[in-house]
């Protein structure tokens, strides 16, 4: 039972939201400077309008909601869910003004798609977009992937109770006991990989025949997009534009690493390399990939889709990994999923997307760890059933540390899985209602809610507005993993209590 929020609670939420919006708005300075550097003055103005709107809204909130107390857990959750919606609305302003969207709703869709690291674009004519606008889209993906805890850390200064914000974004694992220190470590790990990944993609771009200047930007953007498992691309053709196996390979390494838990990265970087062979999540991930890839290969081979095994493996593994890590980089055209990959191929991708990446990573979906826990829980139950009633059955799993598998852990994993299944189903049903074929509607809905962004062609600007709104909700709820969304609903209901 949530107690009725007081005016102090509301002002506290307003205060922290204001600070977050200011921080988010200040990020617009980066694309603004890039736009000015490239002489893209028209888009510089659009970015400046977005920046000023954020500053007015942010400082306006600070003016009317002075700091009253440190953040309570519940307030942190409410802030996390509201901040994502406000980020979408403010982030969409420069996108819409740039003229590349048919409506403000489309711009909001694209903005949420970046923030939730889905990577499904509704961008019209991306090939003629400015560097500034492209940078803003990738920055949004970066903020969304890393989590706004980073913005909070940079722009909120020392804030008590940021754990609510951290958990509100669907994060559970902690590298260090302190959340701020954990966020700082996540930031450090990302910076190390950002430098390495960008340089690798930059060199790959130059060796693929592109100019060094554009290769740098494409390298940076592709790294952000891959590491944060977003799947946005700087060109309308996506990864097809590059015709480069080296770039495909590097992006694949980046998104596999991005889909791994930050805690695991920290443990590996600390020198504990054996951890990778013991972790239940990595084991489950490898098993899942192996099984799904085998089915996919048999299906593609039977349908004679690719001329040789090398092509089959190259296309198959890239798209399957892209789906399983919830990245969404595509090396085939959307309609080819339907016309070429067939029903089994699409089903394999749906399962991969639905399971998703590792917990505590930038990826989405149910998460491999939860699936591993549920399977272990089922096995434990079966053993209990066939064992004598006096037998004490205890099982444990290893994820960073050994943990006993108790009913509470399995129940939490099942609850989150249930909510994911629910929004996968709702999105699919609404898609079917609008006349899309069943499998296509399921594919797109799972892709959206799991934060993958692979498309079989439903997500286009001309799709019904209601479906766009449903997909925006799916992206938002899926990225936040429901907890903070439910907290917001509870908060709203408590607010209306007499």
């Amino acid at each position, binding site marked *: 039972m949530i107690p009725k929020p007081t005016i102090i609670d509301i002002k506290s939420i307003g205060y922290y939201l204001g600070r977050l919006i200011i921080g988010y708005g200040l990020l617009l300075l980066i694309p603004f400077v890039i736009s000015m550097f490239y002489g893209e003055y028209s888009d510089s103005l659009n970015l400046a309008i977005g920046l000023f709107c954020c500053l007015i809204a942010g400082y306006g909130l600070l003016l009317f909601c002075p700091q009253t107390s440190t953040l309570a857990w519940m307030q942190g959750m409410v802030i996390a869910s509201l901040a994502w919606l406000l980020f979408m609305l403010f982030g969409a302003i420069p996108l819409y003004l740039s003229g590349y969207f048919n409506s403000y709703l489309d711009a909001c869709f694209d903005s949420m798609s970046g923030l939730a690291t889905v990577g499904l674009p509704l961008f019209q004519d991306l*090939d003629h977009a400015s560097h500034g606008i492209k940078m803003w889209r990738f920055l949004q993906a970066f903020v969304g992937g890393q989590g706004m805890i980073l913005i909070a850390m940079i722009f909120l200064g020392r804030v008590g109770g940021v754990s609510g914000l951290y958990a509100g974004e669907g994060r559970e694992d902690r590298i260090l006991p302190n959340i701020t220190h954990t966020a700082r470590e996540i930031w450090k790990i990302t910076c190390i990989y950002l430098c390495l990944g960008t340089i690798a993609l930059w060199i790959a771009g130059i060796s693929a025949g592109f100019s060094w200047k554009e290769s740098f930007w494409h390298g940076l953007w592709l790294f952000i997009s891959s590491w944060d498992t977003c799947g946005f691309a700087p060109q309308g053709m996506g990864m*097809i534009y590059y015709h480069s196996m080296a770039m495909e390979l590097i992006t694949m390494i980046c998104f596999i690493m991005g889909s791994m838990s930050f805690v695991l990265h920290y443990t590996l970087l600390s020198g504990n390399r054996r951890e990778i062979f013991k972790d239940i999540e990595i084991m489950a991930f490898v098993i899942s990939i192996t099984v799904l890839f085998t089915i996919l290969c048999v299906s593609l081979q039977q349908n004679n889709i690719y*001329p040789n095994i090398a*092509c089959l493996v190259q296309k198959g593994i890239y798209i399957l990994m892209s789906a399983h890590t919830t990245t969404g980089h595509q090396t085939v055209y959307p*309609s080819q999923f339907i016309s070429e990959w067939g029903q089994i191929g699409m089903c394999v991708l749906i399962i991969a997307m639905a399971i998703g990446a590792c917990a505590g990573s930038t990826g989405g979906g149910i998460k491999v760890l939860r699936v591993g826990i549920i399977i272990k829980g089922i096995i434990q139950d079966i053993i209990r059933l066939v064992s004598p009633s006096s037998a004490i059955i205890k099982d444990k799993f290893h994820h960073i540390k050994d943990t006993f598998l108790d009913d509470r852990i399995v129940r939490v994993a099942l609850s989150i899985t249930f909510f994911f299944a629910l929004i996968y189903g709702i999105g699919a049903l609404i898609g079917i209602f609008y006349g899309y074929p069943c499998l296509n509607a399921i594919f797109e809905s799972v892709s959206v809610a799991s934060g993958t962004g692979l498309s079989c062609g439903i997500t286009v600007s001309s799709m019904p507005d209601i479906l766009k709104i449903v997909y925006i909700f799916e992206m938002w709820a899926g990225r936040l993993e429901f907890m903070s969304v439910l907290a917001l609903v509870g908060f709203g209901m408590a607010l209306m209590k007499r």
Partner: protein
Amino acid sequence: MRILIILFLLMLSVPCYCETSGELVAKCREYDGKNITLKGEIIGEVAKRGGNAWLNISDGNYGIGVFAPISMIPVISHTGNYNAKGAVVSVAGTFHRACSEHGGGLDIHATTIKLVNHGYFFQHAIQSDRIRAVLFLGLIAIIVISLYHLKTIKGERRNEVD
């Protein structure tokens, strides 16, 4: 009979003209291995690799990769980006649904590339209402920020007095 055979061979050798990249992608099995012609704007950069190059052409629907020897590519002054409308070319060549040479990708191996137009630079007009909006919003932002800081300073002074 001989005439019929010649006519049949002629039919095979005539390129199959298609209107859009959308049609090529949607009916990729139908067009696989056939000679096609596609007209579109060159987008992004032309990637030169050894004696060959990749160019991506878009007719507004899909972008499709075209693989061609560098010697075949006409002099291109503009490729499509923020500041330029790229040169429009008409590419005749063999369409591959899943090219065995290039990792199973959908592409066209060009036999001829004709320049239709050179493309052109264009300036994005700066709209005066956007400048007015920036000035107006900037002014409001300054006022709101100033008010906030004034309020904070006042609050701090009050705390000091207390």
